[in-house]
């Protein structure tokens, strides 16, 4: 039994303090996911709250068959989808929140602008591709985990991801770092 299992067990018994620790551990990832899917801070906060509350209420049905984090993110993705359906994100968004974590390096204004463009490009993707790209390339989940979170086969993860990346490649072509091209070219030769 890991520490997380213990916290889960205690939460299940109604220990709100234990659940608070779980919230602390996962809130950033869940919020990040919700924010990038919904494209709005307000919606993200609603969706994240909703996800945690739903998870808390449903803890008894969580049997540990899936990893807790996968299970929690599945709830979060669905909560974010609900928020999007309630309010489809407006076409373009300044993405003020993308600069929330200050980055001391380099040309600040340029970076902020680049992030805003990445954010908008992701927000412009069809919902399902969007979720796949966020989970894989921003949050770093494995194909199997994404399949579990989105409740789709691994093959579908693969194709959604390919289409999403393809669209982003076109939209963000001028931002891609030059050295990456050089690296890839060397790889191919």
């Amino acid at each position, binding site marked *: *039994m*890991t*520490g997380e299992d*213990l*916290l889960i067990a205690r*939460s*299940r*018994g*109604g220990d*709100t303090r234990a659940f*608070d620790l779980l*919230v602390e551990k996962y*809130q*950033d990832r869940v*919020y*990040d996911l919700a*924010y*990038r899917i919904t494209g709005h*801070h307000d919606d993200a*906060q609603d969706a*994240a*709250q909703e996800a*945690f*509350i739903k998870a*808390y*209420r*449903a*803890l*008894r*049905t969580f049997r540990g068959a899936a990893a807790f984090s996968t299970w929690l993110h599945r709830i979060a993705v669905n909560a974010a989808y609900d928020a999007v359906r309630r309010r489809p994100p407006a076409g373009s968004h300044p993405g003020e929140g*993308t600069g*929330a*974590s200050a980055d001391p390096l380099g040309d600040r204004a340029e970076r902020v602008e*680049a*992030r805003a463009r*990445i954010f908008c490009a992701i927000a412009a993707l069809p919902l399902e591709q969007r979720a796949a*790209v966020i989970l894989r*390339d*921003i*949050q*770093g989940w494995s*194909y199997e985990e994404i399949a579990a979170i989105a409740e789709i086969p691994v093959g579908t993860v*693969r194709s959604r*991801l*390919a289409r999403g*990346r*393809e669209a982003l*490649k076109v939209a*963000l*072509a001028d*931002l*891609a*770092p030059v050295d*990456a*091209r*050089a*690296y*890839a*070219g060397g790889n*191919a030769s």
Partner: protein
Amino acid sequence: MTSDHVSELLSPYIDGRVSAEEQERIGRHLETCAACRGDLAALHGVVGLLRSVPPTTAPVELRAAIRSRVEHAGVPSASGGLGPRLAAAWRPIAAAVAVVVIGVFAANLLGPQLPRRLSERRENGQSTSTVLQFEAAQDAAKKPSAANRAAVSQPTSPAAPAPSPDAAFRSVIRTARLGVEVERYDAAARHLLDIAEGAGGFIADSSYGEDEGRPRGEFILRVPAGRFGAAIKDVEAMGTVRQRQISAQDVTEEYVDLQARQRNLERHEQQLLTFMDRATKVQDLLAVEQELSRVRGQIEQITGRLRYLAHNVDMASITVVLSERPKKGHAGLWDLDGTLAKMQGAFLATVEQIFAAAERVLVLASTLLPVGALAGVAWTVFRRTRQSKAGA
């Protein structure tokens, strides 16, 4: 140039999620196709870009908002079994149950059960590995006689000189195995249920099979320890006892030891929980969590074992192997075999009666033989006397 064949695969390719043959195909294609090499580089570029995006952090108010909503939400899902409060308070409840179990058991032992139990034991003459043994807590009148004490084996000798109050009686797991042959299986099986339920117990397990066409079943009866002897008697009264094995296992040491360990671990857990309250760094918190989970695991293991022991001490187990007495086969509308058997029986009975009559005749004859012989002798003597008189 069929670059579109490969471009779909470039995304899984950079994740290493292509099959071996796809891998080979992509490799071959990239050698010759500059456009796809460009695609791959661009894809690498965009993925690298996405990976460089720092994660958003949740706004500070999120956690507080969730906390307050969770606190108002009460307890996770009322749909699951025990009420939440009950679930949270299971340890004190388990302790209370254990105390009650121990109390009932002690009352059983100290009560009128004692003399009966011992006399039963003498009567049955069973060799048991252990016998209930009582420490100083009882009054002299109820102490087993010297003879009984002598018959008792000594598993208790290594007990601590000052036994804890819980150890004032022995925790004994009693089991019996009885093989009983009965006239009618079905009736007997129902009767077993009555015995179990009448004793305040139940049938924990049963299996049924046939042995050479005769029904044979195995039942495990769980009865309160105080009704163990009575239940055995009831079962044995159902038919002919073919097998009997009774044993008792003293688990007092283990019980007391486990309780002590449980108490210690629970104290330790309490300390850890207070540490957890005070912990400010995530690092500390994780360390405490690790230790807590280890301790909790041990407590759960011990609690499970204690519960198992308490249950088995409380409820004695009697395994009854029930078999039907062999009889002539019977089948169908007309029980031909039965009729033949009856005819044979009738024939034999008649022959037997004839023989018996003959025997009686012979016996009677043998009774009369000496009398007849005597009469013959008397008659001969009488005739000789008359003849000689007449001749004279």
